[in-house]
């Protein structure tokens, strides 16, 4: 018996995890989650994209899943048609509140298939106080809503009032079709949760040509943006994710970092692994192949930050670099 086995077998034992403790910890987490959850749950199907410029390859068939069996094992290994890369346009940001109201931060952005949201968070929330926030959600389809029918700017609209007796969840939301194919849901929470305030905020919405801090302009044909998160104030932590809607487990992730990770081959999962030096838009990056799972690449961004790209293993090395060169 060596030291490790000795500690595992004869060192301090774990104390039992009771159902009560587990339930309380889960409840604590759910309370935190609910406080952070945007006031939206439904998911229309299609993203509105600024433009959809499709290269000749765009007519290529969508990715199709097949399954082959390996000799001597029952484990099927999925195979996919070779991905075809095409130009990709990130979705337009929602119209912005101009001016940004006092008491909230500049907007942070988040998205899922079907909608994209700008969230103006409480700028000076103190512990124990109710949360106040404003969100502007844009989608191409009318979002389901059960509120009262009204009008806004001369157009049909729906006004929802939620949990008015519970301050922490007090919300008022106004939904209307701002322009053909552009549905807006503006939600005021906490101190912004009254109809007059929400209508006044809606009056201040203006279109914006701002872009996300992390852009992808090349993607596999048929893939969709399914999540992104803006960067922290220092520029790190932005995440943009694409996925194959026919095979949702197939994803591409891009995330920003403050700089390149030293000894990248040792830092990746299952490391140390061999690193391939690659050029990405003339800048030196590192590529690591994790056989059967994914490619991982890191490279500098022009502003001094760096990004990391994760791509499924069935893409070619050249395609991974093409994807990386489309990150800005």
């Amino acid at each position: 018996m060596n030291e490790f086995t000795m500690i595992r077998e004869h060192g301090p034992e774990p104390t039992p995890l009771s159902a009560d403790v587990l339930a309380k910890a889960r409840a604590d987490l759910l309370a935190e989650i609910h406080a952070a959850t945007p006031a939206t749950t439904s998911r229309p199907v299609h993203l509105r994209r600024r433009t959809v410029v499709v290269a000749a390859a765009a007519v290529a068939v969508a990715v199709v899943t097949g399954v082959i069996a390996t000799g001597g094992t029952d484990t099927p290994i999925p195979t996919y048609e070779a991905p075809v890369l095409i130009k990709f346009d990130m979705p337009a940001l929602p119209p912005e509140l101009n001016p940004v109201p006092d008491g909230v931060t500049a907007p942070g952005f988040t998205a899922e298939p079907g909608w994209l949201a700008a969230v103006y968070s409480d700028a000076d929330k103190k512990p124990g106080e109710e949360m106040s926030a404003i969100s502007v959600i844009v989608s191409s389809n009318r979002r389901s809503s059960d509120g009262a029918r009204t009008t806004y700017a001369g157009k049909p609209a729906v006004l929802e009032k939620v949990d008015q007796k519970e301050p922490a969840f007090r919300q008022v939301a106004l939904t209307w079709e701002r322009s053909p194919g552009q549905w807006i849901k503006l939600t005021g929470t906490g101190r912004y949760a009254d109809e007059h305030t929400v209508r006044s905020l809606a009056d201040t919405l203006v279109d914006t040509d701002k872009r996300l801090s992390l852009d992808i302009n090349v993607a596999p044909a048929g893939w969709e943006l399914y999540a992104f998160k803006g960067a922290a104030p220092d520029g790190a932590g932005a995440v943009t994710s694409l996925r194959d809607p026919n095979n949702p487990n197939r994803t591409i992730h891009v995330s920003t970092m403050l700089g390149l990770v030293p000894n990248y081959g040792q830092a990746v999962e299952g490391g140390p692994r061999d690193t391939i030096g690659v050029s990405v838009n003339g800048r030196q990056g590192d590529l690591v192949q994790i056989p059967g799972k994914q490619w991982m690449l890191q490279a500098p961004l022009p502003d001094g930050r760096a990004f990391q790209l994760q791509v499924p293993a069935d893409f070619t090395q050249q395609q991974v670099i093409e994807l990386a060169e489309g990150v800005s």
Partner: protein
Amino acid sequence: MTTSKPPRRGEPPPEISDEDLLTESLATPERFATIFDRYAPVVHGYLSRRVGVLADDLVSETFLLAFRGRTGYVPGRAPVRAWLFGIATNLVRRHARDEERRYRAFGRAAGHVEATTELGEVAGRVDAQALRDELAEALAALTDEDRDVLLLWTYAQLSYAEIAVALDIPVGTVRSRLHRGRGKVRDRLSDLWLTTEETA
């Protein structure tokens, strides 16, 4: 002895990967609850071996901190579970005195612990007490840094690279701390306990 074992490489992957869940939780925070369901028991097991019943509070704090800091997780650098163990380890650091008390109590309690069948009965009872005394002394004598690495390797069964990410230190430092920590434990334990069947 019951041991909480985290899932390791080679086991069937979950239906949705932890990394995907974490990414999805950025836009849909509720997805993070599944991370909790997957890892709360093993994180609690790790914490309770180190700080005892205080783990009941720290397991909650670990996941709250993880949820609030989930944008800081970099997909691909290390598995989500390594990231969680890193957060838990940082919390243990804040409760170093509780951990020391845990080892002292563990040593004192050694005389009340039943011997394993492997060690026999009367002789085994005496041996087990002596072994636990020595283990308690050995773990208490480690520096915080060496103990973190040794116990992430031993209890959480993380790799060098995963520990490096969990503690935000270079892999080389992980290797040297593990080597040093292991050596100190070996020095404290009587030769009759040890072989070299497992290497780091």
